[in-house]
Structure formats: C-alpha cells, structure tokens
C-alpha cells in the first residue's frame, strides 16, 4: 500500500490543531501553576469552592462547558464584549475560541497533576535552603521547582493530550469551520458524516495517534535531561 504524503487539507487540519493546542497550553500553563500553588500551599476560606470551580470542566458535559463559554465570552457577553473592545480579542467562530475551549478543558487535569507534585515537595528541604542563605525566590527555583518538575511535566502532557482531543466544548463554542476552528477531532467527525470517507477517517485518526505519542515521547525526554554536571569548574 502506497502511503502518500499529507494532502493540503490534512496539513491545514494538523497545523491548526498544533497551533490551537500549543497556544492553549502556553496560555493556561501559568494560570494552572498559580492555581496549583494556591491550592497546595495556601489556607483560606473558600478554598473548597475554588477547588470545585477549577474541577467543573472535568465533571460537566463538555457541551455545557461550551455553552457556559458562550455565555461568558460571546460577542454580547460581558467578558467577551470587554475583551473585543479593549484588546480586539474575539473568540466566536475563530481559532482563538477553539484555543480557549481547549485551555479551559485542559485546566483541571493540569492543576491536579501540578498540585499533587507541589504537595509532595518536602517543605523541610525548602527550610534547609533558607538557612543556607537562599531567599524565597531562589528557594523556589532551585529546590521547589526542580523537585516538582516530573509532576509539572505530567500536567503539561495531560493538558496537551486533553486539548488536542477536545471536541464537545469546541464545537459548541467555536463551531466547526474548516481552516479556522476545525481541529483534528472535528475533522474526523466531519469526515465520518461523509459516505465513503473511511480512508480519510483512518488517516486523520492515525495522525492523531502519532501526535499523542510524540507528545508523550517529548515529555519523557524533557524529564530525563534534568540538569546535571553544572558546577564542575568550581570543584
């Protein structure tokens, strides 16, 4: 069987998918980390509520999440109107909307993984760093962050996988527009609607598997090459 290269349409779907999920994860990563930090380290009234809100996209039907996004970020919705009038950012029927939906759906998984890893970092090691002369920021970057890295990586991969697979919230909120919001899962869905396109579906599905496996391999590689062998010139 001859394996021909990707068609222009397939390239478009693939590149759009990559753009949507990478922008989504890059944008939501700091938010996820901040939330994980707050939930892992702070004690305040209303923490249970915050925890519940963060988890909503995980437990709600994605269609409902998409609808809630419409209510919040739609053209006439308060936040949507504000963003479009101030920074010219609109979401409806645009790839940015697909990215927003993907980000929101990935958030709970990322927060969970990062929070877990932050909670397992031994606070006594942070105290040791402080007595050795490191301020809070240096302690964070030299002790807390490296020790939490495996969990942060896991959160990143989970988020990437979730966002590339995102379907329900995206089709509800950003719609299914080829070249604008039609990511891989939406393209597979559209192909399934056309009779005689089994081969097309199989190719897109294969592409989607390939994408997930490379993300996994990348994260494995990243967590393995954690900095050793610095400081050799001093000692």
């Amino acid at each position: 069987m001859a394996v021909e290269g990707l068609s222009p349409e397939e390239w478009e779907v693939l590149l759009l998918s990559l753009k949507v999920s990478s922008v989504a994860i890059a944008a939501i990563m700091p938010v996820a980390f901040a939330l994980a930090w707050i939930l892992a380290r702070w004690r305040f009234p209303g923490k249970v509520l915050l925890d519940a809100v963060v988890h909503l996209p995980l437990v709600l039907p994605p269609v409902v999440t998409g609808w809630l996004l419409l209510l919040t970020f739609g053209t006439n919705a308060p936040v949507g109107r504000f963003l479009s009038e101030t920074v010219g950012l609109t979401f409806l029927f645009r790839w940015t909307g697909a990215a927003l939906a993907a980000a929101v759906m990935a958030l709970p998984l990322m927060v969970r993984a990062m929070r877990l890893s932050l909670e397992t970092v031994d606070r006594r090691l942070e105290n040791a760093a402080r007595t050795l002369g490191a301020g809070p920021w240096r302690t964070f970057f030299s002790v807390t962050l490296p020790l939490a890295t495996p969990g942060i990586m896991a959160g990143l991969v989970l988020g990437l996988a979730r966002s590339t697979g995102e379907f329900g919230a995206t089709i509800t909120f950003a719609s299914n527009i080829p070249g604008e919001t039609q990511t891989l899962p939406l393209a597979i869905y559209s192909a399934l609607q056309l009779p005689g396109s089994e081969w097309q579906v199989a190719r897109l599905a294969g592409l989607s598997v390939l994408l997930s496996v490379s993300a996994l391999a990348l994260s494995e590689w990243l967590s393995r090459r954690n900095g050793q062998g610095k400081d050799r010139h001093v000692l």
Partner: protein
Amino acid sequence: MSFDVAMTLQRGSLRMHYEFTAGPGLTALFGPSGAGKTSLLDAVAGLVRPVEGHIAVAGATLFDRARKIDLKPEKRRCGYVFQDHRLFPHRSVRRNLLYGWRLVRPEERWLSIDITLDLLGIRHLLDRMPATLSGGEAQRVAIGRALLSAPRFLLMDEPLASVDASRREEILSLIERIRDELKLPILYVSHDRGEVERLAQQIVPIEPASATA
C-alpha cells in the same frame, strides 16, 4: 555572650518558655524527646516565630518582639545541621556543598572548599547523589554544606542520630575539631548523656515541664 535566648513558643495549645545564656564553645540542649529542643533550634534559625521574647547570637539580635526585629532565615547566617541531614535529593554532593557557598560574598567565606573536604573526608563522594550515601556519609556532607555557607554559628540537631555506631566516634571527634579549631559557637541538641558530657562546655536542661499550659 554566644547565645542569649529568652522566648516563648506556641506549639498547638502549649506555650513553651525557654531561657538561657551561654558562653563560647559548644552548648548542649539536653532533655528527653518531645521536650521541644528542635523547636528551639528552629526558632533560632528563623524557621519558627516565637510569640514573645528575644534571641541574640554572638552579639547580634536575630529576633526581638519588643523591638520588632525578626531577621529572615537567609539573613541569620546559621549553619543548621538537621537530624535528617536534608540534602537536596536532586543535586549531587558537589552541588549540595556549593549551594550555600555560592550565596556568600567571597570576602565573607572563612573556610576553603579544600579544607572542608579534607576535614570531613568527603572528597571521594563529590559525584555521588545523596540517595546513594550511607547515614554517616550523608551527615558529613550535611555538616560540610553548613560550614561552607560561612555561618556565624552552628545549630546541630542530634547529628549522630542517623549514624551507625562504628562511625559515631569519627563524627564526634570531627565536632570537637569544629568546636576547637573553627571556634564557632554551637548549639547542640541531644538526649544522649555521654555525648553531651563529652562535647559540651555548658549544658542547658530542656524539660517537658518547661511547658506551661
């Protein structure tokens, strides 16, 4: 006066009061487990905040409630040797040793890396990771890491706890050398009478009875 401590710590519903002054050399805090000796060291290091009182070491006030002085841990220049060594698991022995050393201005360093490695006999361990060290090796590295941060005084919390019997003598004489040759004021916590009598210039009993409800 090396140590001048008069303070109250809140531990749960208990209030613990500590009061002592000590001259140069090694001062042992002696008492049964659970008497709050580690809490006292944590307060001197700045890891626990007293509700009342003051802490001064070698003429410098580290904490004074009345004068609103509360130095951050990283400003207190203490070398804290923990009971559970607390080496950074993601850093080699070399990078553990250099952690505090890098954070001190060069003119404030008073101990060279070479001398430390020889004093502690840890030169052959430099490339190892903490997880591969024995209890005694890890404790020697932890002492080295504390000394290289150029501390003005040492806090040692049961430094022999995780050391096997055959290595105890080695570490004990090492602590004597640090006390006599480096002339650092040392606060030393132990519940072993023999250890305390051998090392200490002065013994401060810490009784659970010092807790007042």
